[in-house]
């Protein structure tokens, strides 16, 4: 950007349109005060004129008709796509429901498996184990176990005395 804000402002105006007479007078005053800008200004004007002289790109005479034809064709394709999409959307519409139902069933089965009544054989087996445990002497009965065991450890039968007695 130029160091002269006033010149820069006039320059920016000249990029878009011809300067008004008052703007041109301001520009002349600016160039008189800063003659070093004169060459730049001349180049700017020449460039603006050159860019303005660039010819328009040719547009086919049937351009609008082609665009409308494209819009029409695209609209028809869009309608087909919409129909297909709706058809495809039919699947996603019921598929999540089925998937959700599947999840519910699986969760139900797992829960049922956790709380369901056990088979008779399994219950009988369990009872058998409990019965075996209940047939054992109670800890109360075993509290004199060591004493009784010590009694068993007494000397054996005196066979001679037994014979005499007989």
């Amino acid at each position, binding site marked *: *950007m130029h160091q002269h804000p006033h010149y820069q402002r006039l320059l*920016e105006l000249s*990029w*878009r349109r011809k300067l008004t007479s008052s703007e041109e007078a301001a520009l002349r005053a600016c160039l008189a005060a800063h003659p070093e800008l004169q060459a730049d200004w*001349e*180049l*700017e004007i*020449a*460039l603006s004129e*050159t*860019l*303005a*002289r*660039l*010819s*328009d*790109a*040719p*547009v*086919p*005479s*049937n*351009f*609008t008709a*082609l*665009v*409308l*034809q*494209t*819009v029409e*064709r*695209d609209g028809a394709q869009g309608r087909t796509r919409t129909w297909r999409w709706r058809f495809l959307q039919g699947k996603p519409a019921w598929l999540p429901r089925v998937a959700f139902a599947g999840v519910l069933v699986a969760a139900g089965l797992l829960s049922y498996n956790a709380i369901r009544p056990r088979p008779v054989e399994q219950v009988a087996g369990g009872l058998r184990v409990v019965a075996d445990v209940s047939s054992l002497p109670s800890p109360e009965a075993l509290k004199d176990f060591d004493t009784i065991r010590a009694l068993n450890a007494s000397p054996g039968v005196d066979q001679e005395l037994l014979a005499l007695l007989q």
Partner: protein
Amino acid sequence: MSAELDPDAALMIRVKEGDREAFAELVNKYKQPVMNVVYRMLRDMTEAEDLAQNVFLQVYKSAHRYEVSAKFSTWLFTIVRNLCLNEIRRRSRHPADSLDIPHPEQEDQPWQQFEDKRTASAPNTLLHGELEEKVDEALADLPENQRTALLLCRQDELSYDDIAKVLGCSLSATKSLIHRGRETLKQKLKLYLRTGAWPESK
């Protein structure tokens, strides 16, 4: 900006309601400015035509998203720029690929087969010949954002603010882009600009 103030916005309201005549009116009004920008962005007449048609197709398809408060020309040239950028990126990814090569699904389209391209000669064969080609080359050598800023600056209907909106940058950044672009052009075209003619050696 109300629809009463901007006739283009009023037309767009009709386009939103599916009015093809209103759409045709907009196409007729803007086809030349759009083609001018697109052609000088891509420098290929066939691609420019295809892309310009695509711009208007996008306008039609996106009409429901158009906010009446927005200036139509700003919205339109934003679409133009986005599609041009897409094409420039596509070219950089596939340098040998061209829109001239018909796509299989387009081969059976009558207008693609029978359109007479001879009626649409490139602008550098018109009026200014070599001079125009040199200016076009100098423009093409500019960075994309400077080139777009300069091309949009030629559009009377766009203010600096509008150009800034299209470019997605601030007003001062936009003016800076234009300034830098013009400085480069002045350097490249200096000989012509000073003498008013291209030197024979060029």
